[in-house]
């Protein structure tokens, strides 16, 4: 790793930190611009109770001071304050609770998407313009054009209602199978297309021809030379894939009633639990930014030929 790469990595980390700060700041001020503020409640509260409530949550202080406290609590204690709608629970506890299920869902979905996508993509590229290639491309095009909530609902209708082979409720035993399939189909289709085009590109390179001319075995060419090099662009998709899985989990967890962070987020939007919305937005945003950072750095380290500037 030379100094230029180091500089790039430092610059990239700086940008990521800046992004996280912007997310927190935007979230805070945008939420406080809502009429009545984040702690507005629908029920009529007596002025004394309202004042006590505001004092308890520090809402009587100037906005900038509140912002400073909020920022400090997040950075030092991961503290996003109490949830408004779920009495007596801290936002971070609700998030941590949901994260257990969501992380399992997301990681398995990402793994399935990666493995199946790479295999299908490589297969399609090696059988270019044959029937199997065309079939794979048509199916993946269809998957890419289908919003995840539609995919989820259709799978739910088919597997859980019509055929009754899998449970519809995500909390039941084996209930995560359908959500995982739903969540992995789009990134899988995307990775398939990405791998195919990158593999085709690599197969046309001179070093592949050289290897063939040397008499290297076909398996060694495919796995040792072609596949390894064609996976480089796929690495860049890891960040966006995580972003997709995070947002996709919002709808998928709603459809299949999975007790995860996505469902908690959607519920907090509809019930106007503002501290919860703020906390979840920030946590998920940090997750996405960090994943983007990791995949960008990995890309640079794996292939030093790439120049970003």
């Amino acid at each position, binding site marked *: 790793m030379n100094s230029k790469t180091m500089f790039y990595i430092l610059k990239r980390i700086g940008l990521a930190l800046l*992004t996280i700060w*912007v997310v927190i700041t*935007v979230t805070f001020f*945008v939420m406080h611009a809502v009429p009545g503020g984040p702690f507005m409640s629908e029920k009529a509260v007596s002025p004394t109770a309202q004042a006590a409530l505001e004092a308890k949550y520090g809402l009587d202080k100037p906005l900038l001071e509140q912002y400073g406290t909020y920022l400090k609590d997040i950075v030092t204690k991961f503290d996003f304050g109490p949830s408004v709608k779920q009495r007596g629970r801290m936002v971070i506890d609700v998030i941590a609770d949901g994260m257990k299920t969501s992380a399992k869902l997301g990681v398995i979905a990402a793994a399935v998407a990666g493995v199946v996508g790479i295999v299908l993509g490589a297969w399609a590229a090696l059988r270019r313009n044959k029937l199997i290639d065309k079939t794979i491309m048509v199916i993946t095009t269809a998957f890419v054009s289908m919003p995840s*909530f*539609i995919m989820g*609902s*259709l799978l739910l209708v088919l597997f859980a209602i019509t055929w009754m082979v899998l449970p519809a409720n995500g909390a039941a035993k084996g209930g995560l199978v359908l959500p995982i399939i739903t969540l992995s189909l789009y990134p899988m289709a995307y990775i398939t297309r990405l791998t195919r085009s990158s593999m085709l590109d690599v197969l046309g390179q001179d070093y592949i021809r050289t290897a063939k001319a040397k008499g290297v075995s076909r398996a060694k060419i495919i796995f040792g030379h072609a596949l390894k090099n064609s996976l480089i662009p796929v690495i860049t998709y890891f960040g966006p894939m995580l972003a997709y899985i995070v947002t996709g989990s919002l709808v998928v967890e709603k459809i299949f009633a999975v007790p995860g962070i996505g469902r908690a987020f*959607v519920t907090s939007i509809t019930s106007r639990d503002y501290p919860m919305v703020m906390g979840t937005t920030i946590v998920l945003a940090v997750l996405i930014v960090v994943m983007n950072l990791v995949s960008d750095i990995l890309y640079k380290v794996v292939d030093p030929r790439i120049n970003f500037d």
Partner: protein
Amino acid sequence: MNKRFTMHIDVDAFLPATDEEKAYMVQMRPSSTFFRDGVKRLLKNKVATVSLIIILIITLSSLIIPAFWPYSYESMLGVRPGKSVDASFNNLSPFEYGETEQARIAAGETVFPHIFGTDSSGRDYFIRVIYGTRISLAVGFFASLIVLIIGMTIGSIAGYCGGKVDLIIMRFVDMIYSLPDMLMVILLATVLKQTLAPVLEGTSLARIGVNIISLFVVFGVLYWVSMSRLIRGQILSLREQEYVLAAKAAGAKGGWIIRKHLLPNCISVVVISTALQIPSAIFTESFLSFVGLGVNAPMPSLGSLASDALNGLSSYPYRMVIPAVVISLIVLSLNLFGDGLRDAFDPKLRT
């Protein structure tokens, strides 16, 4: 061949052309413009042509059918002034009729069928799907237009001015680009819904619905960045061309050069990426509708129809399947058409 240089002039070369020679020079077919060439290439592409036809059929039917359809998207058929609600109109299966309608049929009248049945509030589902399609298409179209205008303005300023202006704008673009877009969309939509409602009340904009307006605002704030990056890149390469130098030498001002020389040359790139922006806007709208941040009830969009159908999914799965198929069809054909457009008008961009 050893040909020596002489001053001798070959007189034959200056004779008038014979008819045979003239016929040889006649243009066999009229010259083709860039645009006509592209259209020809586009029409040769079967996938793109079929997609275009599907888009046209869906768009036209969503515009025309509501004009003559006997039911409207918001009227609950079971509700009559002065009478109690006739629940027999709720949740009709396709081609079923409510009690009063059955009485009318028995009396010999013809009643227009409910092709897709009715929803849980007794509204004709077919017209709701049609109307939802219209809303989704309109949202996609106008959101892309907003993205186009903002992205084009900022991108061309950055590309043309260069230097410090470019640097500042591009750092800002980088910033917005690295924000997780969907989360920010949800956040802004949640907040704008509350903030804009009192502001818009009473104005003509309120009729469109606070949620759609906030969706447009969100698109205007977040999604212009990739468009402006694209335009900037184009302008950067175009402004080094000789004709720009010639225009400058002739005394043309910056705005004139951007409008008359640079933008027309990026037009194909712009049209293509706008065409590809529409499906992604439709995607986003349906996603927001599904999370509960989309159009205001009773106005339907394809996303909100699918979301509503989730409640009665086990009994009425077709209510989910119909908007699902329509939305996938729209997005798929717009994507394929956009790809065809790219192949036809900008072969350089081909991936």
